[in-house]
């Protein structure tokens, strides 16, 4: 349906959109904490020692920005019976740690060079950047992380998880959704889902520990040649395929065995209850075009 300008204007008046725009100087080391029931949080960075909070909300919602030496707190309150929904666009110092959380909200962070903790019930969480620890939790929504240099912890219940171009250890857990780790560089990786594929593309570090578990989908790894790893494979009804030649060191029933690549220093655990497990070599001609 097309809206005439008059109808659109009437709609705007009915919505009574209000805007908050405030800038607060913050000390180095202060953390931003945003608590929100519904709407969105979009965090960007700049090189100033200040935080700018721009918020769009109804006139029945009040936005409160409160600052202490350690925390800049942003929250909203709605008049009784009104929806507490705000769309935030917040600009922060690049090194400011972030705690973002709430209910049905989309969360976007771009350009951060600090710790990030984000939590939502419904909505997408998208983080570009992050240092130290990036900890993300979602009940229902996709979670995407890119360009983090941090330990990454993602716990989702329902929604795909994608981590790309990251350096740092990874722990990802899901119940319904895939886990895709692309061009990651970590000494420790744990990825677990129930109904979803697991894909890993990255190096296997000497002495590292890598664990991938899904219930009824594929586990697929694309790793470089020259790997030193003890590989354990376990599946109940799936099949195992490998680009790497291997000799089974110990067979423990159907679908359970281990073998060693190189000196075996890393531990690589591949498990799918009823899906296939594929160990691909990055430069293998047969796999090059696969993904």
């Amino acid at each position, binding site marked *: 349906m097309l809206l005439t300008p008059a109808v659109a204007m009437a709609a705007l008046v009915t919505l009574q959109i209000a805007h908050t725009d405030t800038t607060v100087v913050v000390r180095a080391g202060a953390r931003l904490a945003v608590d929100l029931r519904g709407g969105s949080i979009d965090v960007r960075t700049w090189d100033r020692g200040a935080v700018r909070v721009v918020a769009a909300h109804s006139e029945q919602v009040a936005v409160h920005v409160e600052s202490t030496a350690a925390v800049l707190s942003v929250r909203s309150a709605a008049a009784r019976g009104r929806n507490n929904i705000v769309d935030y666009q917040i600009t922060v110092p690049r090194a400011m740690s972030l705690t973002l959380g709430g209910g049905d909200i989309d969360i976007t962070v771009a350009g951060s060079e600090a710790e990030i903790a984000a939590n939502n019930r419904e909505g997408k969480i998208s983080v570009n950047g992050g240092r130290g620890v990036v900890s993300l939790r979602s009940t229902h929504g996709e979670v995407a992380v890119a360009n983090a240099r941090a330990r990454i912890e993602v716990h989702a219940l329902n929604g795909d998880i994608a981590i790309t171009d990251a350096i740092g250890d990874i722990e990802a857990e899901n*119940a319904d959704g895939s886990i895709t780790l692309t061009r990651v560089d970590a000494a420790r990786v744990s990825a677990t889902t*129930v109904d979803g594929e697991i894909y890993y593309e990255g190096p296997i570090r000497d002495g590292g520990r890598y664990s991938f578990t899904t219930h009824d989908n594929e586990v697929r790894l694309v790793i470089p040649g020259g790997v030193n790893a*003890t590989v354990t494979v376990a599946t109940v009804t799936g099949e195992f395929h490998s680009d790497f030649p291997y000799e089974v*060191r110990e067979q*423990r029933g159907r679908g*359970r065995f281990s073998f060693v690549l190189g000196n075996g220093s890393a531990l690589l655990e591949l*498990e799918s209850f009823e899906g296939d497990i594929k160990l691909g070599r990055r430069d293998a001609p047969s796999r090059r075009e696969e993904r």
Partner: protein
Amino acid sequence: MTGAMNEPRDEWADRLSEYVDGELTAAETALLEAHLATCARCREAVGELRAVVRWLSEHAADVGHAGSGATAPLAEGWTRLAARIAADGTARPGAPPVPIASMTRGAPRRSWTRDPALRPWLAAAAALVLAAGSVWLAARDHLAGERGAGRPVASARSSPTRPASRPRETSADASVAAWVPTAQYLAAVGDLERMLRDGRDHLRPETIRAIEQSLANIDRAIAESEQALGADPANDFVADYLDAARRRKLRALRRATAAVNAQT
């Protein structure tokens, strides 16, 4: 997973509740805070324990007013209670934290968990305590675990395919194929499922569908694992897998009830 990354000191996992209660010396506090700076799981555990204390302290007056039986556990110290619950849960490796119902142990006989006036905050408290116990348990496992501490017979199951040092959720009893769900586990699952049912009106239909789908996936994984283990009782992979699936169900339920409580 983070245990070896941070080389944590094992003793701190047992002292987080003392820290939250302010019972550590200044020197101990400084040492623990230095550890917290490098250990996300312990930080998270401390945060959850503080959430329990904060929430319950905010509602202490309500508790005393609405249900006299509830004051006894409050006086005991909630963080230690949560820690004790988690400790009880680890009496047998693999056992989860106990449900809220067990918190009345030692308290007057009146069942304050059944008082209708208390149900809303009890539900929230249960979620918080269960979460805190879980996080505490995870931190304790993580601090103690990778070198095998607290897992006395894990090595009995070690094999090239199941290294003893593996940081996973394993059944500790070599004579048992899989951890058998305890009454505590079943009660915890029952409590959380009931909280979820009671709170579903607060969630959007899409969220409810997503949660139900996820839980159904986990239930299917548990059922298929049990079936596979029945067919092959010596299969340690399936036994471990079943353990992990059951724990995953608890985590998923906690996540779901946390979503409910975020809205109520």
